[in-house]
C-alpha cells in the first residue's frame, strides 16, 4: 500500500474515528437540535412574526455554524494537545495525509451536512409553528389573517438569500470554512489553550495587516488617492477624478484566492505541521 494515501486505510481510519467518538457525536446531535429549538421557541415567544423571517433563520444558521463548527474544528485534532492521546494518534499506521483527510471529512463534510440537516429539521416546523401562533394571535385580535406573511424558509444555497448576492457559494460559508480551517490548524500547532491562541493569532494577523496597509502601503500612494477595493485606487479632487485599476484578472484571482484559497492554504499548512509534530 502507498505510504502517502491509501483509500482502504483511510476508510479504516474513518471507522476508527467513528468508533472512538460515536457516543460524543450521538449526544451532540440532540444537544445542538435542542439549543436551536430553545432559541426558536424563545424568539417565537418574544415576537412570533420575526420567528419565521428568513433573516432570523440566516443569522441563527450562521451564528451556530461559526460557533459550533469552530469548536468542532478545534476539537478534531485536540488529541494532539494531550500527550497520552497524541502518542497513539501519531503512531497509528496511517499517513499524515490520511489522518488529515479523515479529520477534514468529519469536521468539514460530515459536520456541515449534519448541522445543515439538523437546522432544517428544527427550522421548518418551528417557522410554521411560529406562523400558526402569529395567525392565531391575529384572529384573537380580530385582524385579517391575510396580513400575515407566508413562511419563507431561508435557503442556504440560493444566491438571492445569500448575504452577498454576487457570490456563490455564499461568502459567509467560505469565511466560515477559512475560520474553521484556521482553528483546526491552531489545534495542531498549539498544545495548550489552542482555540484561544488561534483566535489571538487571527486577531494579531488582522492588526498586522491593518498596520502594514496604513504604515507601508498608504504612505506610498500619492496624496488624495484612496484604495477602492482590493486592486483599485481612486482620486477624487475638486478638479479631477481619476481611477487606477490593476488588470481585471488580478482582481478576479485575488478574490478567488481569498474566497476559496484560504481554507486550502490552512489545510496544507496543517498537513505540514502534522508531519513536524513531536511528542
Amino acid at each position, binding site marked *: 500500500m502507498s505510504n502517502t494515501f491509501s483509500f482502504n486505510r483511510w476508510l479504516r481510519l474513518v*471507522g476508527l474515528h467513528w*468508533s472512538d467518538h460515536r457516543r460524543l457525536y450521538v449526544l451532540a446531535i440532540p444537544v445542538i437540535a435542542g439549543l436551536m429549538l430553545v432559541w426558536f421557541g424563545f424568539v417565537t415567544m418574544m415576537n412570533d412574526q420575526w420567528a419565521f423571517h428568513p433573516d432570523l433563520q440566516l443569522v441563527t444558521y450562521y451564528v451556530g455554524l461559526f460557533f459550533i463548527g469552530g469548536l468542532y474544528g478545534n476539537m478534531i485534532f485536540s488529541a494532539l494537545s494531550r500527550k497520552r492521546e497524541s502518542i497513539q494518534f501519531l*503512531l*497509528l*499506521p*496511517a499517513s499524515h495525509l490520511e489522518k488529515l483527510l479523515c479529520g477534514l471529512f468529519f469536521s468539514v463534510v460530515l459536520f456541515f451536512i449534519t448541522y445543515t440537516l439538523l437546522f432544517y429539521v428544527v427550522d421548518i416546523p418551528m417557522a410554521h409553528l411560529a406562523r400558526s401562533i402569529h395567525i392565531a394571535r391575529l384572529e384573537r385580535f380580530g385582524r385579517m389573517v391575510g396580513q400575515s406573511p407566508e413562511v419563507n424558509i431561508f435557503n442556504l444555497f440560493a444566491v438571492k438569500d445569500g448575504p452577498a448576492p454576487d457570490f456563490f457559494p455564499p461568502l459567509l460559508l467560505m469565511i466560515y470554512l477559512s475560520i474553521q480551517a484556521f482553528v483546526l490548524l491552531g489545534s495542531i500547532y498549539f498544545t495548550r489553550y489552542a482555540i484561544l491562541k488561534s483566535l489571538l493569532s487571527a486577531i494579531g494577523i488582522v492588526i498586522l495587516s491593518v498596520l502594514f496597509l496604513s504604515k507601508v502601503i498608504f504612505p506610498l500612494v500619492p496624496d488624495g488617492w484612496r484604495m477602492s477595493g482590493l486592486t483599485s485606487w481612486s482620486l477624487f479632487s475638486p478638479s479631477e477624478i481619476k481611477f487606477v485599476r490593476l488588470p481585471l484578472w488580478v482582481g478576479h484571482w485575488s478574490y478567488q484566492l481569498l474566497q476559496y484559497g484560504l481554507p486550502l492554504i490552512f489545510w496544507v499548512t496543517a498537513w505540514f505541521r502534522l*508531519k513536524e509534530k513531536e*511528542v
Partner: protein
Amino acid sequence: MVTIRDLHFSYRRKAVLDGLSLEFRPGYIYGLLGKNGTGKSTLLRNMAGLLFPQRGQVRLGDLNPVLRQPAFLEQVFLVPEEFHFPPVLIDEWVRHRAVFYPKFSYTLFEQTLVEFQIPRDVRLTDMSHGQQKKALISFALSTNVALLLMDEPTNGLDILSKSQFRKIIAGALSDEKCIIISTHQVKDLENLIDRVTVIDNGKILFDQPINNISRKLQFKLSFDPDETSRALYAETSLKGNALVLPSYDDEDESHPDLEMLYKAVVLQGDRVARVFRN
C-alpha cells in the same frame, strides 16, 4: 534491525541524549535501565518517530522513523507509560485498530487476555489502571510488530501481574521481533532480558549481554571481609553483605542480580567498565 548513530537530542537547552550509538537486533529482549529523567523515554520516542534527532540518525532497517510512514508504523508499537482509552469495550477497540497491523494475531490476543484475566464485558475506561495496561500490552504483543518498545511497562502492575508479564513477554519473542523495555524497576526484568543497557546523563554507561555479565561478574551474599573488600560494589544486609565481584573464572557463571548490577554500574561505573575491558 535498529541502528542508532551519534544520536543527540535536547529539550530546549537541556541535552538529554548526547551522541548515543547503539544497535538492536531481532530475536532479543533488551533492557534499558536508568534513573528517572536520564533519557530512556526520550530514546524510545526517537526510535518510534515521536521525537526527531537534532543530530545523528535512527533507522529501522532502511526506514527513517522521522517520516512516520505507514510502512514504518506498521512495524513499530510503543507501549507508553501513560496512555488513553476511549469508552468502548476491548473487542471494539481492538477490531478497529488491529486492521492497521498486517501481522496482527487474534489467537495470541485471545490467549494473552485469558492469561492476564482481562474482563471483556467492561468498558476500557472503567477498568483499573493495571487492567488497562495489561490490555494494551496484550494488544501490543498481538500486533507482531518487528520492534516493540515498552516504556515502564510494569508500573501499575501488581506482583502476580508482573510475573505474568515476564512469562508472556518471554513467550512472545521470536526471531523476527526485537523487544526493548525501558524501566527503572530493574527487578521486574530479571530472567527476561538478553542485554542490559544503562543510560545516564544522555550517555551509554553500560551495554552488555546477560551471558557476558554472568561470566564476568559474580553476585553473592557473603560475610567474608576479604571478599567484601574486593567487591566492585557492596551493600550490607541482615543476610550478609550483598556483593558484586569480578569473576576470574569464565566457567563459573553467576546469576545476575539486576538491581545490584545497576547500582554497581551507576555508582562504580569505572571499576565495572575495567572488568569488561579485560
